[in-house]
């Protein structure tokens, strides 16, 4: 089936994931109820069930498991009495790196989580060895002369040395 996922979202009542997709130049909408779902459900499992559901499978090919899990978390938040803004805020927080955090103190699992968030940008910007325009040795000069604006991070750190 030649359908391309374009957008997805949720409907709270009954808990459903909504997919906007394109098929033969036409936009269509598919509503996929998330069955037996409550505020205590495991969103990872729910997302997997949706993704593997024989009736939805073909439509959800272009939608990542992670995305589906996020949508389920919105549904779960609503069932648990959170506002949409609250749920979105929580998701956002888990997906961004706190630039102040000292990651040297994290355990392996927490560190791996941070790295997987970082991986998203890393993979996006990555030039792979197999890319046709891959160049092994890329040299760019960035002169550090006096006139440059300060990075703003120097205040105390240099005095300490």
């Amino acid at each position, binding site marked *: 089936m030649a359908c391309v996922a374009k957008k997805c979202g949720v409907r709270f009542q009954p808990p459903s994931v909504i997919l906007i997709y394109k098929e033969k130049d036409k936009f269509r909408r598919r509503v996929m109820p998330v069955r037996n779902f409550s505020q205590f459900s495991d969103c990872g499992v729910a997302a997997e069930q949706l993704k593997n559901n024989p009736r939805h499978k073909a439509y959800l090919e272009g939608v990542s498991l992670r995305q589906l899990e996020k949508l389920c978390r919105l549904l779960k938040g609503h069932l648990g009495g959170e506002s949409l803004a609250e749920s979105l805020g929580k998701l956002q927080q888990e997906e961004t790196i706190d630039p*102040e955090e000292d990651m040297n103190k994290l355990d392996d699992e927490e560190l791996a989580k941070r*790295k997987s968030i970082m991986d998203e940008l890393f993979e996006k910007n990555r030039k792979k*060895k197999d890319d046709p325009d891959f160049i092994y040795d890329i040299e760019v000069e960035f002169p550090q002369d006096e006139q440059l604006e300060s990075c703003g991070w120097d205040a105390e750190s240099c005095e300490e040395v």
Partner: protein
Amino acid sequence: MAERPREDVPSEAGAEEAVKIICLGDSAVGKSKLLERFLLDGFRPQQLSTFALTLYQHHARVDGKAVLVDFWDTAGQERFQSMHPSYYHKAHACIMVFDVQRKVTYKNLSNWYKELREFRPEIPCIVVANKIDADMKVTQKSFNFARKLSLPFYFVSAADGTNVVKLFNDAIKLAVTYKQNSGDFMDEVMQELESFDLEKKSEDLSDQEDSSPEEKPPSS
């Protein structure tokens, strides 16, 4: 042993100069990704004790001479701090990395640097600002840490590859130069002389060996 097709590897390993280069910096600044980008898949790292230490071997050429490089890569996590003394042992150059997106990792450079100098007061050290692909604007800003200490400074990206190869090749050159000109080399000559001397009065040997803090065996 890792063999890269682009370098011709000398037939007898004994003819090679060998240097050790260590990588320092906070967790998740990209030390391992930088090494992987430099070595591509021409490496087969040797992993010790759950990622605390990864060793990469690399064959390089400096001024037409074959050089065998050992890259040492450790995790930034604090729980691995106790192994640092052996990490620094006999290193010939250091690559010290921070993440341009995280101020803490820049602030922490001074701690890494202090520790480095406790163990290796003289070796060349390159300061590296990684992840510039995430925000190219940082390359227009001044970072004074390196300048104040008169250390070489590079903007790089392990993701898109900017300046990665240059960084490592320059580090290798610095390491080789250091090894050839440094007190380290003198230490070895001195030891050579001493051991001649000591063949006669071998009781003194232990005393002599203990006198140099930099030459302690790894305390593993």
